[in-house]
């Protein structure tokens, strides 16, 4: 079975290794320059809150560099869905499409063992590959995360660092296997796998992830600006009036626009009794959120793989 799995998936395995090497070389070189520049120039400016023109220039140009890097590595977000389609959906659908299921499952190995062995090997290989990728991203993004507002909670960081990346891929792979079994046509199975994967993954990120824990809300005077704001995951923020009521954006603009110039603006807001508020998840919750997300997608994957096995055992046609 190990040989058969390798023989049927060796092109995919070699492509994955090739991709890993390419990403390693590219992210390694570029990441090293991001790390160096941060350590030599940017870290000092940020640590001392230096507002000299030289420091502003350094930080600004580093920001631009980080923004370009963000755009450059957006492509990694397609990897989980791609593996779900290319590896997951092609686990069973082509066997039905080409009729080879009748060849494969009339050998001396039961089809349950055939599936469990193959799925286990593919899951293991996928976790090794995505785990290596996630480790690479985590290292590459380390200096970037220090200058981005939401830090490691920023979607781009959270989705590719730590456990998220492997568990998304595991989910896509399991989903592809079940869809392939139910649909039995490779191309249709691939399309449906990607569609369902996105239909679960994207809403979960927007609507589920903020609620893994109760967010913290704090308020403060306009005269005491936030000092530890960086790297918290800010869900929402705004202004309160003297009675503690949250102001709408328009109400705040009316008050702010009535003030003629910029100097002493904080004192002006203070004199109106305004206080700021924000609701956020502290940066220290990163691993709690990662583990919650991992548990969620691992459970989903386990259910999908179990359903695939049971369904295959019960009936092949």
């Amino acid at each position, binding site marked *: *079975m190990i*040989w*058969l799995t390798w*023989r*049927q998936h060796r092109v995919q395995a070699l492509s994955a290794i090739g991709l890993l090497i390419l990403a390693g070389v590219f992210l390694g070189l570029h990441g090293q320059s991001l790390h160096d520049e941060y350590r030599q120039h940017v870290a000092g400016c940020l640590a001392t809150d230096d507002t000299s023109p030289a420091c502003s220039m350094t930080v600004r140009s580093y920001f631009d560099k980080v923004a370009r890097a963000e755009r450059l590595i957006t492509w990694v977000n397609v990897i989980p869905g791609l593996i779900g389609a290319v590896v997951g959906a092609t686990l069973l659908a082509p066997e039905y499409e*080409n*009729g*080879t*299921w*009748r*060849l*494969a*499952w*009339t*050998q*001396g*190995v*039961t*089809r*349950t*063992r*055939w599936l469990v062995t193959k799925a286990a090997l593919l899951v293991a290989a996928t976790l090794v590959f995505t785990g290596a990728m996630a480790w690479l991203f985590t290292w590459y993004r380390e200096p970037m995360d220090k200058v981005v507002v939401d830090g490691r909670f920023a979607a781009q960081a959270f989705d590719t660092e730590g456990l998220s990346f492997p568990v998304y891929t595991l989910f896509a792979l399991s989903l592809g296997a079940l869809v392939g079994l139910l649909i039995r046509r490779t191309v249709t199975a691939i399309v449906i796998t990607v569609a369902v994967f996105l239909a679960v993954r994207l809403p979960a990120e927007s609507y589920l992830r903020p609620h893994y824990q109760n967010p913290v809300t704090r308020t403060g005077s306009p005269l005491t600006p936030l000092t530890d704001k960086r790297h918290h995951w800010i869900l929402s923020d705004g202004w309160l009036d003297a009675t503690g009521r949250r102001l709408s954006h328009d109400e705040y603009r009316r008050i702010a626009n009535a003030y003629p110039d910029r100097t002493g603006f904080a004192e002006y807001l203070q004199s109106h009794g305004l206080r700021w508020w924000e609701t956020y998840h502290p940066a220290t919750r990163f691993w709690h959120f990662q583990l919650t997300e991992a548990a969620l997608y691992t459970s989903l994957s386990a259910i999908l793989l179990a359903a695939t096995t049971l369904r295959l*055992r*019960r*009936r*092949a*046609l």
Partner: protein
Amino acid sequence: MSGPLSIEPNLGGDAPALETERLGKRYGKVRALHDCWLSLPAGAVIALVGPNGAGKSTLLQLVTALLEPTEGVVRVFDAPVRAGAAAGLEQVAFVAQDHPLYRGFTLADHLEMGRRLNRRWDRTLAERRFAELDLPLRRRAKDLSGGQQAQVALALALAKRAPLLVLDEPLASLDPLARREFMSTVMAAVAEDGLTVLMSSHVVAELERVSDWLVVLSHGRVRLSGPVDDLVSSHRVLTGPRTELAASVPGVVRQEHADRHSTMLVRTTGERPEFHPAWQSRSIGLEDLVLAYLELPDPASQPPAQPSPTETSPR
């Protein structure tokens, strides 16, 4: 999945090659196979015939554990055949309709797959077949002709060294020359190894020359099962004047009445059946016999024809 296995089938004994008891398969409300009782002898070449949609493929896929029955059991050389049991799988080799192979695999890859997935595997036998067919081991399956593909699929099935070989419409997609070559390979294996072969077809003529046991299936029921020679010799067609005499003839399978005379197909029991002198008696060919049974009214209203225990082994 382990356990004692008989490596060689019990050819001399009474153990049937294939037994089904009350076997049935439903797809939702559709009954593909119903109340199927069969006991097929070891060493026979068994033809499973019936029109398209009669349930032939369903029966063969139940025998090869590709399908789970909704009721009843299948036993091959006393090993129960279930999708979850490797012991049953090892008793049956299968060449599916259209002879599926992995398109991207070379012949060597297919042999390696067979070796890895079977406890018993006769690589030499398959390699010899490939050499006879002039097929190099590095040839990919997608580069084979239809006839070559069938031969390769057959060689892989034979290399499994299972005592029962099941062929689902093996000749349907082949040209006449490829058909003859395919069947001669099958018959050689039967002669050499005492293999039991169960093959389906919707064309009786294809199997008439090679098979010695016949199973007729229609509407998901077994209509007839027995040794070909006995079936042919025990059926007579009677024609005679249309009178009440018809009612007194025993063993009528089917009757047709014209204005003045009647035609009947009867199944006789005695060695030399005697009929009223008013009736003319003649023998019937296998193809007509099968057609007569297929044209019987829907079996839902009748008890199915069951294999009688008095039937003797073929040859």
